[in-house]
């Protein structure tokens, strides 16, 4: 019957129908629409111990994690398609490369010791100087750093768009497809999935008092006594505050050869108070992430502990105390994908 109408009649007729439909939809959408809830919860604050165990599970989108994983390991994020995130943040090596300095594209040597990617989601800021507020923001650094991946986002997007699998996968998860934001979102999702629960210490904290032996417990007590706990606390055993290195004694004076990176937070804030201030690193899986400190000056944990005691606490630690603390520090190695990272370290290839 519609065909019988004149044009304007038809038009109004259709419009009326549309209006009716639209109103219905609207009405229904009011009642049935589920608001987008941003679920944020306060982290558990334990009164008993300053260190809290890692959560056993995290609610992450598996698709994003999987995609992020592929991207994390994809060297096409670099200019010459040789360097991927995993190149420096090797999951088999405790999330670091084991080198004092990173190697970027074309064999370029980086300026600072690579911090571990494991449990990086629990750090309040990223980079030694805390310039990145989030994991997503952090990705901008290495991708675009001339001495690291040396690429640009357009190039990366182009590279990735060339891959039909990425096209379809991205399209499935992100309606907007392959964009820097979605790439970062995917990689960050993956990085957040790199949490290592069920370390011996975590188990001890959860109530399994048998997880630690006497020495390790003594080491933990010592860790607290001498004041390491003042900075290395929280769920990530650090990573949630800034602190000056060389609190009691001047660290750089003794080490000498001060570089730009040594200035730390000062590079960002230009505030004198923030000279030599760095983000307090996480001590989880610290047994696997030698060398230590931003300048990789400590080759092993013993040395690192000794330096920390002297410069931060003004204490000369006795060797047995150091041993005990080191023993404690070893209990902070967790599991990834059900497997202890220490096994991976030992079974992983030796560099």
């Amino acid at each position: 019957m519609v065909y019988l109408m004149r044009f304007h009649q038809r038009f109004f007729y259709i419009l009326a129908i549309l209006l009716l439909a639209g109103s219905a939809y609207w009405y229904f959408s009011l009642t049935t629409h589920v608001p987008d809830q941003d679920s944020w919860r306060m982290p558990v604050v334990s009164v008993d111990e300053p260190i809290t165990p890692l959560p056993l599970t995290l609610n992450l989108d598996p698709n994003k994690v999987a995609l992020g994983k592929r991207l994390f390991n994809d060297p096409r994020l670099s200019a010459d398609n040789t360097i991927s995130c995993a190149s420096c943040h090797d999951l088999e090596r405790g999330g670091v490369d084991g080198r004092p300095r990173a190697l970027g594209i074309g064999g370029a040597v980086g300026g600072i010791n690579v911090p571990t990617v494991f449990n990086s989601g629990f750090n309040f800021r990223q980079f030694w100087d805390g310039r990145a507020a989030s994991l997503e923001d952090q990705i901008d650094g290495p991708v675009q750093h001339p001495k690291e991946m040396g690429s640009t986002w357009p190039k990366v997007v182009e590279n990735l768009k060339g891959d039909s699998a990425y096209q379809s996968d991205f399209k499935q998860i992100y309606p907007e497809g392959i964009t820097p934001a979605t790439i970062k979102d995917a990689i960050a999702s993956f990085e957040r999935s790199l949490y290592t629960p069920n370390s011996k210490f975590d188990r001890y904290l959860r109530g399994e008092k048998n997880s630690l032996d006497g020495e390790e417990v003594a080491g933990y007590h010592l860790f607290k006594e001498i004041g390491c706990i003042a900075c290395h606390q929280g769920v990530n055993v650090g990573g949630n505050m800034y602190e000056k290195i060389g609190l009691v004694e001047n660290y750089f004076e003794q080490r000498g050869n001060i570089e730009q990176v040594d200035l730390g937070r000062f590079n960002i804030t230009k505030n004198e108070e923030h000279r030599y201030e760095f983000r307090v690193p996480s001590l989880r899986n610290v047994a696997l992430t030698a060398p230590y400190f931003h300048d990789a000056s400590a080759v092993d944990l013993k040395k690192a502990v000794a330096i920390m005691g002297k410069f931060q606490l003004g204490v000369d630690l006795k060797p047995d105390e150091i041993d005990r603390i080191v023993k404690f520090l070893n209990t902070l190695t967790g599991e990834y994908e059900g497997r202890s990272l220490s096994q991976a370290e030992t079974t992983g290839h030796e560099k």
Partner: protein
Amino acid sequence: MKRSIKQNVWQVCIAFAAIAGLLVLFVKAQAVDPDIHNQVVSDIVELQKRDTELGEAVLQLHYRLANNYDAVTALMQRVGTLADRIEAHQNKGWLPDSPEARRELAELRVQIERRRNWLDEFKSGNAVMKNSLIYLPSMVSNVLALLPHETEATLEKFEFLLRDALLVSVKGDEASIAQLALDINRAEQAIPGLPVKAQGVAVYVVRHAQTLLSVDRIMPGLLADLSAYKGEHLAAGLDRLYQAHYEQQQRTADIYRLFLLLAALLMLAYSIFVYFRLKVQRQQLEHALAEISNQQHALNEHAIVSITDVKGNITYVNDKFIEISGYSTDELIGKNHRMVKSGEHDQEFFRDLWHTVANGNVWHGQVKNRAKNGRYYWVEATVVPFMDQEGKPYQYVSMRTDITRQKAMELQVQSERRLLKNVMDTLGEGVYMLDQEGNCTYMNTEAEEIVGWTIEEVVGRNLHDILHAQRPDGTRVTADQCPIRQSTLNKKVYRSEAEYFQHKNGTLFPIAIVASPMIEGNIVTGSVAAFQDISERKFTERELLRAKETAEAASRAKGDFLATMSHEIRTPMNGIIGMTELALDTEMSAEQREYLNMVKSSADTLLNIINDILDFSKIESGKMELELVEFDVRNLFVSTEKTLAIRAAQKGIELLYDVDNAIPDLLVGDPGRLRQVLTNLLGNAIKFSEHGAITLRMKLLTQSVEGLCVRIEVADQGIGIPADKLAHIFEAFTQADTSTTRKYGGTGLGLAISSKLVAAMGGDLSVESQVGVGSVFGFTVTLPAAKNQLPEAVCDELAGLSVLIVDDNATNCQLLSQQIKRWGMRPIVAGSATEGIAMLREAQQENTPFDLLLLDAVMSDADGFDFATQLQSMPQKPAALVMMLSSASLRADAERCRQSGIANYLSKPIDRWELMNTIKAALGVQVEDVSVAPAQLASEHSLNILLAEDNRVNQKLAITLLQKWGHSVVLANNGIEAVEHAGRVDFDVILMDLQMPEMSGMEATRLIREQDQLRGRHSRIVAMTANAMSEDRQRCLDAGMDDYIAKPLNTEKLRALLDGIESADVAVKAPVYDYRAALNTADAWVVETIGQAFLDDCDPQMAAIDSAIKSGDRVLLMRGAHTLRGLVGNFNARKIEEISAQIEQLANVDDLLSASGYFEQLQVEMALFKSSLIDYLENK
């Protein structure tokens, strides 16, 4: 088209505007998405909340109620995230974009940044502080342990240092910090004075204290900041702004929503309206569709429809198309239309077709197509192009009707027309066709030749004006007067041979023309005529006419001659025969008698010959007419035979007659002529037979409405006729043999005449004959039966009586037997006398005698009379006896009968009436005397007869006869005398001869009739004429005669005639004038006064008139009659008045003779009047 495009554009614009408007409304009606609203509100609220929590968490830290920095760090991050989100909301426009809002937001960010920085500071300072506070006491105690010998003052420095450090960490106010700084200074100064072992530790103590101090210096500020934090208020301000904004948005949205609702309602209403209108439209459309479908169906039922695209490829065909073309739908769809091309039409034809339709015009035409099976068919086609929006055709629809039949008929008509033209051109007659106005539409070549004009010269012009406008006498005839035209206009065919046409060269020529109107429906649409030039024929006709007239004149002359001669011949014959008869009636010697008999027979013969010749002539000239009168057929036969009976008996031959029983008594025909024929045939039969019997027979063949078809035969046992002569026997003047003539005599005309007479009756006289055996002459005629037949003569007295017939003639026996049976009697036949005797004896023995015996007088084995005598001796003889006599010896036998005492006898041939009467007489039954005895001559009454005859002999003859019969006769010698006498005396009958000098019988009759009229009577006038032709008779009757008798006078006929006339005194008188009645009507006083005087004066008056007549005094007569007239007028005696007036008139013209006649009547009338008057006067 253009208008619709404009309309479309207009409509489209409206539509777009409406859409745009609605969209605008719709968009504007969007209140802030509740989700967004919730988001913003919740974010702001959460910001406030988290900020508060952050403050609390910091306090907790400060007062060492928290173990680690996770909580504050997380809260700080959350606040930062929330602030970012709110900023994002602002960027998306979810928050108002006012300068206020922007300021609030900027302020918020600033505050948050400050918080963050402060927190970072706090966290780092707090850590240091915590550690230092842990270390400082132990370190101080270590130092003090290492300083056993030092002064109290020195020790106090370190103790006070520790104490103040702790204070600072507790109080953290300016004073404490200042004090600690002092303490650190004093301690530091004291270090060099310390033992070396303690110096290292002391340094550490100082360092820790310094670290603590540096941190402590900041802390108050931080704490002050904490208390000064206004984040809560800021977020509230934003919140307020947002709420206000939100509410306003809602309000705006509400208004738009309202408009939208209204618009929606409007559209809904419109849609509903449209819907209902559409419903109606749909119904109309459906109806129209159904109509169209029906029409299409109807069209499809009649028309052959096909649709093609612009290239001519078929896209649709209807059933009729398939039917007529023989192709199926599949074979047609998609193919080009030229697949049905027949080859009849040339390229030009189709080019024209395409050209017409391609330009958007409808094409009509007739097309010949070819069906699948090769059959050709013609169609009347209409091709209609359908145009699209741009005015170009997009398909062609063809509708056709099958006209193959019509076309075939057309062709046939054309060929027939050609044929017709050929025929007309070959006719040999001129043919032309006119339209309604009389203008020529066609003329054939023959017509052209006849009239000299060519068809081109006359077509379209009025043909009458060209050809028929002039009559031979020069008068002009207009088209309207033209009889041909008038006739055809009246829808009648006009035939004429009297018309004349005018040739181109001006000459007139006669034509024979037949003109027929051409009628269609009921209207004359024109005429068609065929004509011939008949000049030659007319000429021939005229010649023929002349010849005919000549011949007719000759014939008439011949007829007149015949009539005259007939009269001239018959008159003297009449005299001869009549006189001779009279003489024979007188006394004379035997010798004289013998001589006179010879004379008479010679005269009779001669008369017969004359009659024959005249008859023959009459018949030859065709002047004979047959009568149609009723006659008794049996009577005719008997009487005819009776006239010849004597001759036959003399030769020993029996005359028999046999009429079929089924034939009634009375038939209608001409008995006279029949008698003539029969007499001739019978006469011949007698003449040429020596023995045996001659039978006259009438058989009924068939009966129909016209009458009885009877066969009349005369069979004899005579000499017969040889076969070769049979054919010529009916020819005039031939006899079978010239010797026959010598032996038998005769004129040779008899059979010829008979044959012609029979032919005139509608029969055909034929003969069968065998030499030596006999002949049978016969003919078949159809005679109607008379309407009223004679009643059957049944006699009760005769019923059941037994009759013995004794006769040796088997035929006669049979005839008698039949007749006896008809009368209810029981006949027994005996073929001879011997047999008869035997039967009588038998009867006698059985005691059953016969009641009646019919006995033949002459039998082969016995004489009848002897038989009769023998009978006498028989006991128980039949009661009655009737003797049958032969004609030959009638007289002698009659004498013998009387002598034998046989009272009852008959002569053969037997008349059945005679038989009946004789039987009755024999049996003693009363007999009616039906017939008149021929022998009587005495008349019963005497008549007054006027005889008008000029011939002296005939006069004498007639007078003698009449006077012999007892009548009184007055003679007139001519017509004049006859009139005179008739005028004076009333005769019972006037015998008027037609051929008389001075005045003919006719003229005399006329005059007598005039007299009759005056006198009020009717004279019986009988014509006597030798002219026996029937038209003469008719002329006599027409002239006023009452009857007619032929000359020579037949005595019997005359007798019969006269017998039929009653005498004057018993004749019906003419009506008498009633004078008494007249007197009653007259003036009584007058009558009484002058009545007697008149009576006294009457006789002298009459005597005066009489003497005037006798003396021939005209004047006196006039005066007398005039006076009388006046006188009788008083008495209303009209009759006398009239007569007197007549006399006066006659006297005036000096016709005293006639006047005297009237006078006699006057006398009679006067006598009557006088008696009436006397009576009247006596009885007044």
